[in-house]
């Protein structure tokens, strides 16, 4: 139960003047990045018409997310932004699955990871919006329906970053805590494997997908 003390650190970096580096999370993130690079290299190495196992898996990800992006944006934009969306999903999925391994945890259970991903999506969405619509139409969007709605529209945009990143963080962190506490209450007898399967694999996959879809939707809303 002492592991619950980790929670105290969460809010510290938000103040700005006290930089806190959580070395554990950084190490986990690097494990995910290196794992993804190795996966990409292996999947691409023996490319053939009849795909092998890894190539199949890679093509599955790319196909699915290319089609999703094309549905939400159009063909021209999809060619440009589908790799980003696909990479985002794979990164988050690997992050959420990392907690399955003993002595490792999910980088996404740290607010810093999810918040930086959320801010990245926010910046990209607005960059794409300005590029596609032009700066005038973009700014005009904030003064709809009436001009004095501007502050509320700005808050509405900013709250998207908060909601997307806290959703992923809250789900993964909540799952961690439930697994820890229920294991503690049942003396780690029977339940933990099922709980880990449910929270880390099932919820992790759903939340990674939701995060990716929302980033895509935010881009689509800016473009249209």
């Amino acid at each position: 139960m002492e592991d619950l003390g980790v929670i105290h650190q969460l809010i510290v970096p938000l103040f700005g003047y006290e930089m806190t580096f959580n070395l554990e999370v950084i190490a986990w993130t690097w494990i995910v990045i290196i794992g993804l690079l190795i996966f990409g290299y292996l999947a691409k190495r023996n490319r053939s018409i009849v795909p092998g196992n890894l190539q199949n898996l890679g093509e599955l990800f790319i196909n699915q997310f290319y089609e999703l992006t094309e549905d939400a944006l159009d063909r021209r934009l999809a060619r440009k932004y589908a790799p980003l969306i696909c990479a985002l999903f794979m990164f988050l999925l690997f992050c959420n699955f990392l907690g399955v391994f003993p002595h490792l945890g999910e980088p996404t259970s740290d607010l810093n990871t999810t918040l930086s991903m959320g801010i990245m999506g926010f910046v990209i969405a607005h960059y794409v919006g300005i590029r596609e619509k032009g700066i005038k139409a973009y700014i005009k969007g904030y003064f709809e329906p009436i001009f004095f709605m501007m502050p509320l529209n700005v808050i509405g945009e900013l709250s998207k970053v908060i909601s997307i990143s806290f959703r992923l963080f809250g789900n993964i962190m909540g799952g961690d805590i439930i697994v820890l506490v229920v294991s503690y209450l049942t003396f780690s007898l029977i339940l933990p494997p099922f709980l880990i399967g449910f929270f880390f694999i099932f919820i992790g996959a759903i939340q990674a997908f939701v995060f990716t879809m929302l980033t895509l939707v935010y881009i689509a809303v800016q473009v249209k």
Partner: protein
Amino acid sequence: MGLGAIGAALGEGYTAGLANEGLALRPKKSGDILKNMLVGQAVAESAAIFALVIAVLLLFLGTETPYLLKASAVLAAGLSMGFGAFGSGVGAGFPAGQASLGISRQPAMSGSLSTNMLIGSAVCQTPAILAMVVALLLIFSDFSSMPLFPTWAALLGAGLSTGLAAIGSGVGGGLAAGASCEGIARQPLSLGNVTTTMLVGQAVSQTPAIFGLLISFILLFSGFPESTALSAAMAPLGAGLCMGFGGIGPGIGNGLTAEEAVRWVARNLENTGGLTRTMLVGQAVAQSTAIYAMVVSLVLIFVI
């Protein structure tokens, strides 16, 4: 206990009502329907039984240590379990009722309908189980080393946060499970797709309850510095109430979305992928108010 009993009674009443409707439609299958109704009601009642367990524990343990802090922990445990059982009790009634009705329409499917009902209502119970975990921790943890003054409010807030948030998730999960039983009865071929969509929808509907649990644990274990100021007590209490009430609406809303998505997956099987995707996006947006509530709670706990 009282609240848990009300919820379970509502759920069982709904089940019995639909079972009677089913019996009227098809008197010959009365044995099957009755059996199913009883199983469904037993599951709906388990929420009330959780509440009873906690109530009995409170009766026997609460009297030993007559301290104010213990009293607030015990009160919080009762509130957490009562509210949590209320939601799950009502929620588990939906699949049981729809399954009973479905068996009368489609007697050949009684086996898979019962299985689906059990899976669906088991997931509905999750918020009640989360509430029970918090209640058990409140009863059995030793808070005597903590300062009385802000801690009593933190304990009360912890109970309310999970308990209230569990209402929404319990009812929401039940709505999705009810629609899945209805859909399988209409279109037996859709069994696999409907169950999968139901589980995904329910899992997302549980999010507010998980947020409630997160806030409860932070309130329980973060340890507030001693202070007799009124505002030091109101901050954790406000945080608990904020997350608790904030979880109700999004939980029910997510359940509504999942319900309709599951219903249309059953009618329109080819479109499962598109419907699941829309459901997830719709639910995710509907959750954002629960997330704002969580942010306000975190600010109340850590920043103020």
